[in-house]
């Protein structure tokens, strides 16, 4: 049974999550991927405020397809998270409490999640048509010129995800592989 989470996430809710837990997320989340991360970090380095208040927020690594007429968003699944690794410690310092992406994170970044009491969620890569249906509101809030890479404020309802890296330092990719790896006869040949 999936745990229901409502944004913004509280420290208590985050501490309660274990690697492998299925969750559904309801509330506001923000999108950002490569280009937006770079701009946020550059703005902060110049001494400016980031374009959105990251305190307690979830950042979803996604660049959606354009909506069909009558729709609010197109296909909107997660992109590969490791590309955001270089920017992630700074994002955590700015208050980000969770990220949603696909694939694993570097050991250093996992440690940063732990030290910030933050969580990395995985969503299913390549399920953008399905995930699109959980998005009930969309508004571009910064960097509109980046098109698909602009920062969007999404209102989501029961967005399905899984805890990949919890606040205790566990990693689903490591656990999963260890549990399901098996020897093969041809390996000895």
């Amino acid at each position, binding site marked *: 049974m999936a745990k229901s989470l409502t944004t913004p996430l509280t420290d208590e809710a985050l501490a309660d999550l274990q690697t492998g837990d299925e969750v559904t997320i309801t509330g506001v989340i923000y999108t950002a991927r490569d280009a937006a991360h770079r701009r946020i970090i550059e703005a902060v380095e110049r001494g400016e405020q980031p374009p959105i208040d990251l305190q307690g927020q979830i950042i979803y690594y996604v660049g959606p*397809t*354009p909506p*069909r007429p009558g729709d609010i968003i197109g*296909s909107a699944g997660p992109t590969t998270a490791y590309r955001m690794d270089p920017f992630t410690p700074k994002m955590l310092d700015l208050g980000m409490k969770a990220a949603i992406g696909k694939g694993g994170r570097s050991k250093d970044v996992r440690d940063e999640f732990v030290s910030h009491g933050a969580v990395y969620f995985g969503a299913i*890569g*390549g399920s953008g*048509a399905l995930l699109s249906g959980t998005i009930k509101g969309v508004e571009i809030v910064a960097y509109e010129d980046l*098109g698909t890479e602009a920062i969007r404020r999404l209102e989501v309802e029961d967005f399905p995800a899984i805890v990949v890296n919890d606040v205790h330092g566990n990693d*689903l990719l490591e656990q999963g592989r260890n*549990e399901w790896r098996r020897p093969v006869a041809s390996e000895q040949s």
Partner: protein
Amino acid sequence: MREINVTEIADTVARLAQEANYFLPEDVLDALKKARRDEEAPRAQKVLDMILRNSEIAEEKQIALCQDTGTTVLFLELGQDVHLVGGDLYEALADGVRRGYKDGFLRNSIVKQPFSARINTGDNTPPIVHTDIVPGENLKVTILPKGGGCENMSRLSIMRPGDGKKGIIDFTLRTIEESGGNPCPPLIVGVGVGGTAEHVMHLAKKSLLRKVGEHHPDPEVAELEEELLERVNASGIGPQAWGGRSTALAVNVETHPTHITSLPVGVNLQCHSARLKVAVL
């Protein structure tokens, strides 16, 4: 001699771009369903269920299976008795991509300058085009919208001849192990062996055009494919690398004669959203 107007080619590319991005090929769907039946890990079963459900929604709503509608890779087999008329072939191909992506509400994912400003070209052009001249008077167009997540995990190794089959297996497995969830398993694993540095990567990519479950006609190569598939699926990586048996749906190996000093090996991974569409004009 048969004439084909490039406008017809552009129209075809525009149509294929949309169909490829909404509808998974039958062989891929069948392989995913089989993976679901064979999968033992409960979490992996759920992931496969959601992937299958996603394909139903994409088809029903005609929206992209994945938001990464890819670099548009086009393979042309151009009959040598065809005379192309009506304009420049490569401009027509780009025009087809431009229209297909716009009309199909597909994402523009190409940036103009790779290492500096990285400004989006705004229409997903240019496509990457591979052209083979073949006998006959037809034109076969294959579209492979290739996602960045899996393409970024491509690897090349120029091995020593003595590294042999074991070298190929170790390198392929290492590539997949290190890629983890990034390329969106369950994968179709493309492996090129032989030729030269650039040709072996081309072979790896081209092997992805094969139907899932079809083996190489050479029994020795087919055996290597089967051994690799068994080893990949014993890795425990599983769908999305969250653990499980179904790490790959297929391993396709293509070979080419090579230099006496060389054993080039290239790996090109295809995500489970293995979009591909073919038309013959």
